[in-house]
């Protein structure tokens, strides 16, 4: 009987679903949508065509003036940066990605919540 129980336990253990890690759900790229709402410190995901120096720029949609800009060195493929909003006093902005020659790579609209 003991042997039977042992075999049964072994069989149950053998049927347990292996602990295979699930892939993370795909993250929406900021420039793949026409518009996004953002909150302070929110991460944004975007792709770069090559490694190098780029800028991310926030432009007031109403005045056309640049409100904030960050120059950074990016990597090929997916990059993650953060947007901070506490210092910004306008609600509707363009987010612009440019390369080192100021050539526009991508552009989208963001709304600060």
């Amino acid at each position: 009987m003991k042997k039977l129980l042992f075999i049964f336990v072994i069989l149950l253990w053998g049927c347990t679903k292996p602990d295979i890690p699930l892939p993370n759900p795909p993250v929406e790229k900021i420039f793949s949508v026409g518009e996004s709402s953002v909150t302070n410190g929110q991460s944004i995901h975007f792709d770069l065509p090559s490694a190098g120096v780029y800028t991310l720029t926030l432009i007031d949609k109403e005045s056309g003036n640049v409100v904030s800009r960050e120059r950074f060195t990016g990597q090929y493929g997916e990059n993650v940066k953060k947007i901070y909003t506490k210092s910004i006093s306008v609600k509707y902005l363009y987010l612009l990605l440019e390369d080192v020659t100021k050539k526009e790579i991508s552009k989208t609209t963001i709304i600060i919540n």
Partner: protein
Amino acid sequence: MKNLLVTLFLLISFLGFGQSVSAPDSKSFTPSTNGQDGSGFSISGFTTTDVLLTSISLINPPTGTTFYLGTTTGLAPASGFTLTGNKTRLVVTGTMANVNTALASLKINTGATIGNIQLSVATTINPTGYYYNGVNGHFYKPVSTGANFANAITTARNSTFKGQKGYLVTITSSDEDLFIYNNVPQSNIWFAADDRTTEGRWVISDGPEIGTLLKTSNGQYAGNVQGVYNNWASGEPNDWGGNEDAAVTKWGGGFYWNDLSTANVNPYVIEYGTWTNPDDQTFTEFYNNSVTHSNGEVLSARFNIDFGGNVDETKFSAKGYTYTNNTWNLVNGTTKQLSGLGKVDLTSGLDTTKITDGYKATIVPGQVEWSLINPYEPARNGHRLQIDERVFYGTGINLNDIKYIKLFDIYEGPITPLDFNGWWKQWLVPNDIGLTNKANASSYQSNIRLQDGWYAFKADYTFSVNQMYKPHGIELSYVNQTDLNTLYSNIVSVSDVYLAFKELSDKGIFGNQSGMGFSKGIQYMNADVDMNGVFDENDTYKLLQHLTGVQPLSQYTALTYLIKLYNKSDYDSITPNNWNTKFNNTRNLIPFTLNGLNNTYNISVSWLGDVNLSHSAQPATNAVASNSIRTMSLTTNSVSNQINAELMSENVGGNLVVTISIDPLQQELVGTQFQLNYDNTALKFGKVEFVTKGNPTNFGTDKGTYVILGSLITDGSTTLDKTTEYKITFSPLMGLSSVLGLTSISATDAVSKNGAQLKVKVN
């Protein structure tokens, strides 16, 4: 000369001078009475063939108060309205003549409820393709060609109409829903509601109500937020096919909403206007006026407060005070927010108690010319009223006892004793009462004689104890101190300081010539920051200290130490020659006198140190010229009055370094100023480094959440060139893997050698 006249005519035509709505004087209606005369509004300045869109509105009237038009010939009702019947609001189209005829026939019905009756009339040339909603004062433009949901939002936001940015229509009431239903012929119309972020969680996705939660789950009534308008069709929204994330109204031609795929191409409606009260509208070329009558005896005071441009009037509130025993006493704690047009009505903020003060003289038609009144004298800011002293024999009443008069049907109000002039006792009737018009309109022509500009009256007199309301004052307050500090940083900026230096330096070697910087008396008053009646180097020194952050203009930051309030007539009478004889001090409380039940006051606002009047009322004496210049500058600034600045920020060695580089373009640039905001929970201000030529005064002042920085060459002897650069360093209070948005530029100023304010384009 001909060309000049033609140019002037074209300019005036282009700028649209002349069109206006005039309003009648306030009056009291009898409660519970129908058909009382509510006429007196009149529209002018349009051509005879213009078709006008005109809105007539009662703003929050007492229960039972309505109006109707006795004559509606030639008018057509706007959608949702009928011409007949009693109304609280009516929108019509018609020619100016037809509308004026209708307005002249306006009748008021009153109920038993006592209260203010604010009647407002607004008009514009009826725009083709746009629909006006008289309930909220917004315009709507249907776009029948359609777009997917995202493009509909983008197109709406990129459009403007009459100076207002558009947004995808928001539907917040059944009235608004019905308005769209009636005015847009298509079906399945996108409006600003979606659950794109979380399935079933529907929010308003554009416009002034953006982010407002409509409902928390799918289904016609499931999760509908109480008090928020929802109008879903049966079984909707249902996310059919798993991809319906945006809402349409007039679903299938009916009156209800449905959810559809955002990829669908549907017609949509663009809405213009963010206010809820039509009386607060700020559309350009949209003319309105209002009057506050009362139903029954209601004491009221209407204030039209002119802040000029660049100030958000709705951030100010007002309270009423009385002045008794040498003290200002708050009537009650209720504050009233100013409207977007700077209007505010005080009713509960007034004290209805009357006090005894001297005598009232009532002047009625008689046999002998005992009295005369002189034309308006600007130096006195009033009319001299003269009464033969024999009138007073045996009364025991002296010159100083008369505090109030009723002169025929021409004037009733306070007077100020002056002096004796031969047989005449003299008083001053304050302000310009429009004597000629009132005398011509008087019912007692046979008792009035015009002689050399003054009028004589055959009159009799009675004297009675003067019962009057207590002296009152209106006090303004600002929404909060932090916002006020920021506003004031923008009011007194580098262009003000340079203009003051320029004016002073142009006064000749003996300092007694007229400078070239100022053209208006109020500019001298605002530049005389120590308020000692002399504008001199002490003032420019203080202005420079303020700009550079060494010493603020005022020791205190409260509104009362910064703002200047004037009665409009006083403000308009200030000239470059008499300014140092006028009251020049800051105050957020201005006295006023209540005469009768319905009172209107026009107040002009200016600020200590606002030398270029960028945030102040424009004095009326120069109104046409200055308005022309201001309007023209809006169109020409971008071309000729502009400099460029380039902004960059990056992580350098663990610090955040922000660089602002200047390109003066073709300008002779002598001053710059930037407000660089920073997130003080993430950054600590370090320093500003300046790269400048020409030995300017450079300044960089940390204000806790922002830095004010820039340069000024006070004597204009050199200019700032393309090498000008400012480098601002912050140390981090957290990791700096990203810096976007940790700093931002929110305000700029620049000035050229000739004193012109320049626009700064930040690239």
